[in-house]
């Protein structure tokens, strides 16, 4: 399932891929927009023009080297800690659900939730100012009381797909959860 018309809540195009490894195991990957060359260029030029203007006023070359270092460090920090390339959900029947986000620098941040802790996977809606946002979330059981929900874990926080995509993912998850 790789639909071209899928967008996130802000209107940017996202890519969704669903793989079926076996009838017990599905993997859904939602990839956000890549880092655009235009924004990098705009940012770099902006910072360097400002630095050059400061250099013209103060005649101190340290300003220029500071600007270069700042641009490089800022870019590295952004692609390592903030820019999410794709998020994936691997659901394995009777074992659990694995969530992973991978950043633009290649860093992967994974977490695994066992099936015994999962109560259900649902689509919730949140009202934020003037918009209603749908999000997919996992309901985690309370260890003391099996019928109560102790916490809600939202999925796809960085890519934020819209309802159409969420429904597909929801159906996939429910197929697997129904079996176990």
């Amino acid at each position, binding site marked *: 399932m790789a639909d071209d018309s899928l967008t996130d809540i802000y209107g940017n195009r996202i890519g969704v891929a669903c793989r079926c490894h076996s009838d017990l195991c599905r993997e859904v990957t939602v990839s956000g927009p890549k880092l655009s060359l235009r924004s990098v260029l705009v940012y770099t030029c902006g910072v360097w023009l400002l630095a050059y203007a400061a250099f013209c006023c103060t005649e101190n070359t340290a300003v220029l080297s500071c600007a270069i270092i700042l641009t490089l460090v800022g870019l590295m920090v952004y692609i390592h800690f903030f820019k999410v390339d794709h998020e994936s959900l691997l659901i394995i029947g*009777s074992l659990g659900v694995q969530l992973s986000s991978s950043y633009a620098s290649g860093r992967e941040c994974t977490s695994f939730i066992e099936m015994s802790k999962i109560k259900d996977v649902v689509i919730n809606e949140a009202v934020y100012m003037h918009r209603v946002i749908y999000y997919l979330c996992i309901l985690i059981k309370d260890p003391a009381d099996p019928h109560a929900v102790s916490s809600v874990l939202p999925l796809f926080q960085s890519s934020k797909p819209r309802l159409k995509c969420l429904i597909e993912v929801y159906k996939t998850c429910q197929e697997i959860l129904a079996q176990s």
Partner: protein
Amino acid sequence: MVLKIFFPQCCTTADSGLLVGCWIPDQDSAVVLAVVHYPFIPGQVKRYLTEIRSQTDVDLTVLGSWSMPKEGQEGMDSFLKDLSTIFPHSRWLQLSREIGKRGEGSVRDENEKVIIVHYDQRKVMLSQLHPVQEGVSHSKMEQSALRAVFHTVAQSHPLFFIDKYDDGPLKLTHWQSEGREASIIAELVKQGSVPVCKLLTWMLSLWSWLGSIRLLNVPPVRFISSKLSTCVQLGYRTEHLQTVSSTRKATEHMEFMRKANIFVSFLLDMALGLLLIAWLYRENRIGKLASTLVPVADHVAKELRELLEWLMGAPAGLKMNRALDQVLGRFFIYHIHLWISYIHLMSPFIEMILWYVGLSACLGLTFALSVLSDMVALLTFHIYCFYVYGARLYCLKIYGLSSLWRLFRGKKWNVLRQRVDSCSYDMDQLFIGTLLFTILLFLLPTTALYYLVFTLLRLVVVLFQGLIHLAVDLLNSFPLFAMGLRVCRPYRLAEGVKFRVLCEEEGTPLHLMMEINPIKVSAVLQYYRTPTYSCYPRDSWMALCKKLFVGELIYPWKHKTTKTD
């Protein structure tokens, strides 16, 4: 129910034989721990398993058979199938490796779905899941499947002692079957550490006996030693050393990590202290330091005297009450004079004192920093005294003013009910009260200014001492060993697991690779930080400001000790 089989990676190339492991019945899973090779005698296998079962509390059984097809062993499959009648079982697994394809197939008795999870046995055995649940194996609480797997592999230590070069009747394949790994240096250190620990324990008991003799426990001495941060640090380090030098081996993970962290931080402390000594005692730096100390004290005294003379004049254009100003100013100037005479009296001995005190840095950098903090406290004792005088005077004035203000309005503070009540005063009471109120009110600016100046000075000193204490606390409590383990051997501190799908084919069950997900660096600090007396502000900012306004004496840093007082 889906059957989950946890299969060690080292056994995927093993020869045909029996699968030995443990069932986890609640979660319908099986953990394979080793493969016993053909030829074997079933009676001996059963005897060996009972022996291991008695040594650990793992319920080891024969799970099934493993077949790796080879040339000249065509009859193996039927032989292995017949084995299921010899060993008692509730379920029997039959795993076989198919050459030419990457995955493994499995032939099962019932039509059930199977997931095969491959794991790295050595890493899972050494790893520890966080949050650590000690002693949970003794309770019958429901454990999560992953915890049960980790626990089973970790507990099956004795099973991994037979390697393939042993002459015994059984041949096993597991992660250590190529031969046990050990390092000579580690073994020697372990053997040598026992007498060293005994000696250290004896010395520490002598030291604590010395510390507890009656003469040193007299209240004044105890009060002073609780205020001096060097004594506090000394007591604290003694406690640490007692933890490290106990000859009892650490059985639980947290205890082991605490011992290791304390040991490593102690070593680092000593190393930094020795570096400091090497730097300090070269080129006669101590002498230079001593010779600059007295001029610095003189300079500070001169600055203070100039400040007081400025206050005695018209500071910042404010007009002060002449008489009170002169009294307070002369009082403080006399104090400074006393202090400087004392410093000058001590000046011939300063170099010697500094030389011997500097040697205490060999006990560690934390000691050197504590000594520095104490020296700063002693040298700025006059500032502390001025602050106390100024604060007390101001505080009295504020209380007097508030009480007389109530009298002015015809009210009174009811001590019994802790509230303000109205009260009818006599004429002469009102008259004297109003007079005193006016006097105090007009003297307020002078006292307030002195109080402000000395409080600011005191806060500067307290800030400096606070920074030193923060550094000492950091050196004491930072878990270096745990951090090093997280960086170099991340699989040992596990937050959870990660799964990766290995190649999938039609007809074969699902194969997953289980890898260890290490804990975050911030979580290392949270779990393994050595509890210390952390210096944190006793009051919030609002409470501090209120205390300053009213004139109460502030002791901004609260020292929380680990023992309950």
